[in-house]
């Protein structure tokens, strides 16, 4: 079973700072890490490899510093790491990102399953996985929370549709996107980290994809959506009345307020 895991480097959400006035995200305020949902995708791939044999290849499109995330994927069990890097790729929306990743996957040639995260913690669209599947003309199942069965001929997964859970069978090749519930990613051992530190990361630029991708479809140039502006909402507008006195007193005041707002008593 040969598996591909696309991983994205994202800022650490606990640290990243937002400038409310300038409407800017200060990306230098936080170091980059693998998108948390992609850790679940990697773990899913490594477990399948342990069961069925085969290989795990990880691909990331991003700036040069995204190499650390590809390296981290190797420490977590991937066998091969590829970084799509170069100014041609910069500023891509999900359409152009998925187009470039699909071209790289075609170049790889031999694979059975692609496993993506459900979404990222920054762009947060969840669109790249299904779009890759469309470019490659293969089926996909999104929001997968469990792999019930996998063999060389097909895979049976549980897909979450809000409160409904569907068991779905897909032939291979296929693409799935996984939720955080699918597993608990293992931490890499010290030895694995040391090995990954020395491993070679292949760097592919736009020219390496020329057989599979039209360069005018890459990066900002190829992107049909445009980010016009970013607004960082402040939480003004909330009343923010905090009571610290006796619980009796506080709950009475809150009940009064809720009653006045119609969310308690009379309105129901």
């Amino acid at each position, binding site marked *: 079973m040969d598996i591909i895991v696309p991983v994205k480097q994202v800022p650490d959400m606990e640290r990243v700072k937002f400038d409310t006035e300038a409407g800017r995200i200060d990306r230098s305020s936080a170091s980059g890490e693998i998108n948390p949902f992609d850790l679940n995708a990697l773990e899913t791939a490594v477990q399948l490899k342990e069961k069925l044999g085969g290989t795990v290849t990880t691909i990331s499109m991003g700036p040069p510093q995204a190499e650390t995330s590809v390296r981290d994927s190797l420490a977590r069990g991937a066998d091969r790491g590829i970084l799509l890097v170069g100014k041609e790729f910069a500023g891509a929306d999900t359409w152009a990102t998925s187009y470039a990743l699909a071209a790289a996957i075609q170049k790889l040639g031999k694979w059975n399953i692609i496993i993506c995260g459900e979404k990222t913690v920054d*762009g947060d669209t969840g669109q790249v996985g299904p779009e890759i599947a469309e470019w490659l003309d293969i089926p996909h199942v999104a929001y997968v929370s469990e792999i019930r069965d996998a063999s060389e001929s097909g895979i049976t997964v549980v897909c979450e549709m809000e409160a409904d859970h569907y068991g779905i069978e897909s032939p291979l090749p296929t693409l799935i996107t996984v939720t955080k519930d699918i597993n608990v990613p293992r931490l890499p051992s010290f030895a694995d980290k040391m090995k990954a530190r020395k491993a070679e990361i292949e760097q592919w630029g736009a020219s390496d994809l020329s057989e599979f991708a039209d360069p005018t479809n890459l990066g900002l140039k190829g992107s049909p959506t445009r980010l016009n502006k970013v607004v960082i909402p402040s939480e003004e507008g909330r009343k923010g009345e*905090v009571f610290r006195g006796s619980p009796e007193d506080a709950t009475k005041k809150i009940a009064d307020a809720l009653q006045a707002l119609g969310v308690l008593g009379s309105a129901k």
Partner: protein
Amino acid sequence: MNNEEYKGLMVFAEQREGKIHPVAYELLGKGTEIAQKLNIEVSAVVLGSDLGDEINELFYYGAEKVYSYNHPVLADFDLLNYKHNVARLINEVKPETLLIGATHLGRSLAPRIAAAVNTGLTADCTALEVGDEGNLVQIRPAFSGNILAHIRTTTRPQMATVRYKVMQKLPRDPSRKGEIIEKEPEIIESVLKIVSKESSGGVNIAEADVIVCGGRGVKSSTDFELLQDLADAFGGIVGCTRPIVDDGWMGKEHQVGFSGNTVKPKLYIAVGLSGSPQHLAGMRDSDVIVAINADPSAPIFKLADYGVVGDLYEVVPKLAAEARQRS
């Protein structure tokens, strides 16, 4: 692509078990508002099997035209057949805008359609505005809910998935009529097979008007009974933070936040939870937020309309008693 050829606004109406998902009515409401500004037509597309009178509901909520695909294969979500037929319709009818509810189905289907018809797609919008040249300004939260991005699409149709419960539907008006256009579906081989269906016991936290949400401040799973009692007093349901689900105290269907459910109740009572960015991403748009926490510096207080600094074991029963007295 010649953008001028694209006209009108289309809503994809999702159905499950023959019932249209209410987000479609909300999108028709918003779509009607946009269409009036631009003087264009509002249509809907629905795929299913023998939907009968349910289709008329789309007219009652604002559709002027409905493209209906009827086939047994379309009864359930058949991704590739849904994609194939909606993409064909887009290429034929050329709507300027296509809106899809940001349910799991919508967010799985929309990107496939967007790639198939080569257009841009904006995810999980919470506001839509008409821009200077009549183009759609699509506004959406990103960075785990910390920012709002304004996005414009240069290609047509301008496609967006839109979050449930943020747009207003029109009042249902059964006297409204429209034109049904029966389309012949082109059925391709269904390679994805649904082999089982389960429902998580009817809990649908996204629908609740009142949610009492507990976090790690609640010391044991049995203590959640206190929260259940408070929820009962308000006629609401109990939710929880992710660590509570990880500990197996409650099912995933109760989890609120970035990797769980997004909710927008009339009243949200946060009990013994700190208000992490990932939690706030799932509930920050609630109408009224009340926080109960022992730590006055807990971030949840920054988002709360009303807060009590105190021990939840004291405050929760008192608030439940207060609520019961008044209802």
